[in-house]
């Protein structure tokens, strides 16, 4: 399939997913009394899911280019865990000194800053370890371990925050993630963040194409490698943080969407990045619809559905990569 055809198919899938998201759930959209409320609730929820999915998929594309490894999902390499930890830390700081914020500055407006700082910290740690490892699988393992470290630190923060009911609940809700409570305020905040992240990441797409041949070749082709790496790290952290600030920890979207699109249109980042972002949005909205139709007592977190889809695929990819390396 050509990039244009694949892009059109991804847009089609996103349109269908968004339509399903507006119609599926308790209460009918055909009820004139419920329609305005349902459109408002489901519209903002769908928008937030689409934005988070687009950001995660684009972050996945950049991370995979940066590490030259198609398995480098922001969730797998610890970036999402870092962003969650950063967000948790900021929530605690706001609880302790929130009154210092000016009245016009709502806490959710500064939450992404904490997420960006946490994601940058995690990525810097993984890159430092990766610079001493030559094996791609070992780099991923280091990412998983650093992610576990950030999850453990986040759990520690959550447990010590249980003294305050409000703070404990806020931290737990943020950690579990999901878009069921997302409103237009979050969507309005997230849209420019994700748009800036997509634009910033796309500007490095040529450099990422050159880096597919390794740093030495990229440098001789004119790529300022250190700048490109720093830019890619920044935008990966930015996109992951934007998605985490909207929807909490959602795994595997950054792995599945780029993988499927790469198989269809190849590895050129100029097309892979935007088409994967659309596919990631379609995937996340679809998973949110699935979460709504599964009969359950409470709400099934979005991350559970993306994990159920993504984890088996990740294992399959890992085995396929191992087979390729042995050939």
């Amino acid at each position, binding site marked *: 399939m050509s990039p244009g055809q694949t892009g059109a198919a991804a847009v089609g899938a996103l349109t269908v997913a968004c339509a399903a998201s507006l119609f599926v759930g308790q209460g009918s959209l055909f009820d004139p009394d419920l329609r305005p409320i349902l459109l408002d609730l489901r519209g903002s929820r769908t928008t937030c899911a689409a934005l988070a999915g687009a950001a995660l998929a684009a972050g996945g594309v950049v991370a995979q280019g940066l590490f030259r490894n198609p398995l480098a999902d922001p969730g797998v390499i610890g970036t999402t865990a870092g962003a969650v930890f950063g967000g948790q830390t900021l929530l605690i700081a706001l609880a302790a000194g929130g009154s210092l914020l000016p009245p016009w500055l709502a806490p959710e407006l500064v939450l992404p800053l904490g997420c960006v700082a946490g994601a940058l910290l995690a990525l810097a740690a993984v890159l430092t370890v990766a610079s001493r490892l030559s094996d791609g699988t070992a780099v991923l393992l280091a990412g998983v371990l650093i992610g576990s470290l950030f999850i453990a630190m986040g759990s520690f923060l959550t447990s010590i925050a249980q003294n305050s009911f409000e703070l404990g609940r806020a931290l737990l809700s943020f950690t579990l993630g999901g878009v069921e409570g997302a409103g237009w305020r979050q969507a309005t905040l997230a849209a420019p963040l994700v748009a800036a992240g997509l634009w910033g990441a796309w500007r490095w797409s*040529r*450099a990422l*194409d*050159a880096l*597919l*041949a*390794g740093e*030495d*070749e990229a*440098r*001789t*082709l*004119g*790529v*300022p*490698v250190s700048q490109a790496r720093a830019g890619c790290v920044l935008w990966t952290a930015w996109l992951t943080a934007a998605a985490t600030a909207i929807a909490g920890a959602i795994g595997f979207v950054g792995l599945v969407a780029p993988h499927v699109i*790469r198989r269809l249109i*190849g*590895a*050129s980042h100029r097309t892979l990045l935007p088409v994967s972002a659309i596919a990631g949005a379609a995937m996340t909205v679809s998973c949110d619809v699935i979460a709504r139709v599964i009969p359950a007592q409470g709400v099934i977190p979005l991350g559970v559905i993306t994990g159920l889809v993504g984890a088996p695929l990740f294992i399959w990819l890992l085995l396929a990569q191992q087979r390729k390396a042995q050939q």
Partner: protein
Amino acid sequence: MSGLVIEHMTVQLGGRSILHEVNMQAPRGQVTAIIGPNGAGKSTLMRAVLGLVPARGTVLLDGMPLPDRAEARAQVIAWVPQRSRLDADLSVDEVVAVGCYSCQEPRAPRIAAALTQVAAGSLAQRRFPSLSGGEQARVLLARALAGGARCLLVDEPGAHLDLAHRLALYSLLRSLAGNGASVVCILHELNDVNRLADHCVLMHAGRVVTAGPPAAVISDHELRPVFGIGMRTGMAPLFDLVETST
């Protein structure tokens, strides 16, 4: 002098001296072959010129120092590695487009011209990993040409190629030099030096032993102390490229 001039190039890596005060010239419009045994410092010299290893010394191209910035440097000097690490699923024109990283728009005519120059226009839409070794070598050369550099550093152009493909590639490199480029090649196959090069530099243990026309350098007198082998001339069969079916 026009062309590439390397003066007092010294490289130390891990406390070991790899290149000692190397001086050499690669005249414009000619193919210069760098030969020498393994460990002579040929690849390190190329990497030092490209700014990939820390080095002391001066590199001039047509009398001007090479720019420090990667983007500006790529516009004047290009590298064709022996084997690219590129194994990603890119089309041929996407690979060549990477060579235009530091070029101004429009890039499409440059890509098409570079592919035509290496007779690979028909490969433009093929996937790079699916190409044969000879085809990949031509595409990597097109990637180097697309940037418009006037000096080409080519590491082992004939490696992994069968005789016909090797001769076709040599013919292409000679025509590039004929059009005014400075072409510098590392060669291991000494039988190919006369066929490809106008100028030859013999290296040993990080130093230039001698330089000059291939006929003067490829001699028992020069090669015996460096390679530790004797040499008889006129024994190797000569082949000519009669058609390029690539």
